[in-house]
């Protein structure tokens, strides 16, 4: 009797203060060098404060000292998972400023490469999201398939990750024989693996219990925070620049925009954000098939590349649909061969800002999952 009383006394004196802990910057689950200052009440997250800048390489300051062509390799290093898409946005902005119309062959090549890169990005996103939830096998499946895409881009550009392949007005090198067959081979393999992944990961009961109803992001909050890409579409907003503001030749292809429908969980949770990426891979496959069928093999990819890039005084804001969302470049020209200012609106930078809003009140382990479902790349957050 007396012993029981003593235990009760100890419980009442237990510390119940909130605790502030650090996650990162060197932690595998933060997907790079991001530091999260987290306040927890027991295991419940009450506040999240992201601290970034560990990978800040002063991209915008460098741009002022580089010529327009020299900027392209730096842009590769922003979102290094989808470098072609990054380069393409910048190159399209420059072409708008200079008024260049690129040859048909180049347009098709760019679309195919961008969609291949989009698939590669989503493969990594879904793979690492599964890894955060404790599923290791899909990670290996996706990385095996991603290798096929990387081989194609390596054959074209000579690099596996940071391509430096697009040029203002064209491409750095011509296509190799057998390119179309390689692309169709990728499409076949991606479809096969995605069918497996649906059983292995997406509809897995444990995975659903971990990710459904977690980190719910309502549509109006997502828009107010400036979210884009799968994060916004997972909240049920049908917004895709390829359809809403068709650039390049996207108006020629037949494809859908998948949005989170809440088949499992509720619209805007981690599961829905993730499934959008899986469906988008299928849509990218459809675009690649159509583009491969329509693409002309004749033509000079360097026909419209200017000898010297010297745009008139002016400015342009160009945005395009990257795998992670809208990437925007605000390019200001002062009439010389070097830009006056280039501002990059990093997708991950904006998407990450919603994390403190949607992670409050969930378990600490869910915070890691929510961060994974936003799919950030720190190279783009910090620039």
């Amino acid at each position: 009797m007396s012993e029981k009383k003593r235990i009760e006394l100890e419980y009442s004196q237990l510390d119940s203060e909130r605790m502030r802990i650090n996650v990162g910057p060197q932690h595998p689950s933060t997907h790079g060098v991001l530091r999260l200052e987290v306040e927890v009440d027991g295991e419940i997250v009450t506040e999240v404060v992201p601290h970034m800048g560990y990978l800040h390489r002063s991209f915008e300051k460098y741009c002022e000292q580089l010529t327009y062509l020299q900027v392209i390799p730096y842009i590769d290093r922003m979102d290094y998972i989808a470098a072609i898409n990054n380069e393409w946005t910048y190159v399209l902005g420059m072409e708008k400023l200079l008024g260049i119309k690129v040859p048909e062959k180049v347009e098709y090549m760019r679309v195919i490469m961008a969609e291949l890169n989009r698939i590669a990005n989503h493969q990594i996103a879904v793979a690492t999201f599964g890894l955060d939830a404790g599923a290791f096998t899909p990670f290996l499946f996706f990385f095996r398939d991603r290798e096929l895409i990387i081989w194609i881009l390596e054959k074209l550009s000579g690099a596996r990750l940071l391509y430096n392949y697009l040029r203002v007005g064209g491409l750095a090198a011509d296509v190799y024989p057998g390119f179309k067959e390689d692309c169709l081979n990728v499409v076949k393999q991606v479809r096969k693996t995605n069918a497996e992944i649906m059983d292995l990961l997406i509809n897995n009961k444990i995975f659903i219990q971990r990710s459904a109803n977690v980190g719910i992001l309502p549509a109006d909050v997502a828009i107010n925070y400036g979210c884009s890409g799968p994060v916004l579409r997972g909240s049920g907003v049908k917004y895709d620049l390829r359809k809403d503001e068709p650039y390049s030749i996207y108006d020629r292809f037949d494809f859908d925009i998948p949005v989170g429908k809440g088949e499992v969980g509720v619209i805007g949770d981690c599961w829905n954000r993730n499934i959008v990426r899986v469906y988008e891979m299928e849509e990218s496959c459809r675009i690649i098939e159509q583009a491969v069928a329509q693409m002309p093999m004749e033509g000079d990819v360097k026909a419209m590349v200017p000898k010297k890039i010297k745009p008139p005084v002016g400015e342009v804001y160009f945005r395009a649909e990257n795998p992670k969302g809208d990437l925007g470049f605000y390019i200001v020209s002062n009439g010389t061969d070097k830009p006056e200012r280039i501002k990059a609106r990093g997708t991950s930078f904006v998407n990450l800002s919603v994390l403190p809003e949607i992670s409050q009140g969930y378990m600490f382990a869910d915070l890691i999952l929510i961060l994974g479902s936003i799919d950030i790349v720190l190279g783009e957050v910090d620039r």
Partner: protein
Amino acid sequence: MGTNDIFDILKTEFGDYILEYKDQQPVDPYILVNPDQLFDICHTLRDKEEFQFDYLMSLSGMDLGEKLGVVYHLYSMNHKHKVVLKVSVPKEDPKVPSVERIWRSADWHEREAYDLMGIHFEGHHNLIRILCPYDWEGHPLRKDYQAPEFYHGMEVS
């Protein structure tokens, strides 16, 4: 809705606070406004039925030589139209009203513009550095910026 229509409506509502409308190729058309009424103008742009600019695409700080500027790129999800707003403030006293309470995405963008360009956004709840270390000195994106030689005893190159 084109930028000139937006300019006309804003002009009738805010009068002299809307300074000028420019449309010169290859520059995107833009509206230059007085920073004093910026918060109300942005509020109107977001909430008025025919505007509905609910999406702040980008917010960029600019060094214009004598002055500092801020450029706002807005987009409407419903109407699918865009507008560019610009303000400029003197370099000695660069104060711009914060629009963070209108678009939450402006929070980090304004911190970035403060960090790199040294523009003070009045009314921002937490205007601290975001990309540079918290104790960094100076604002690197200004054209007259001189990098310090040492930072905590480490050589800056």
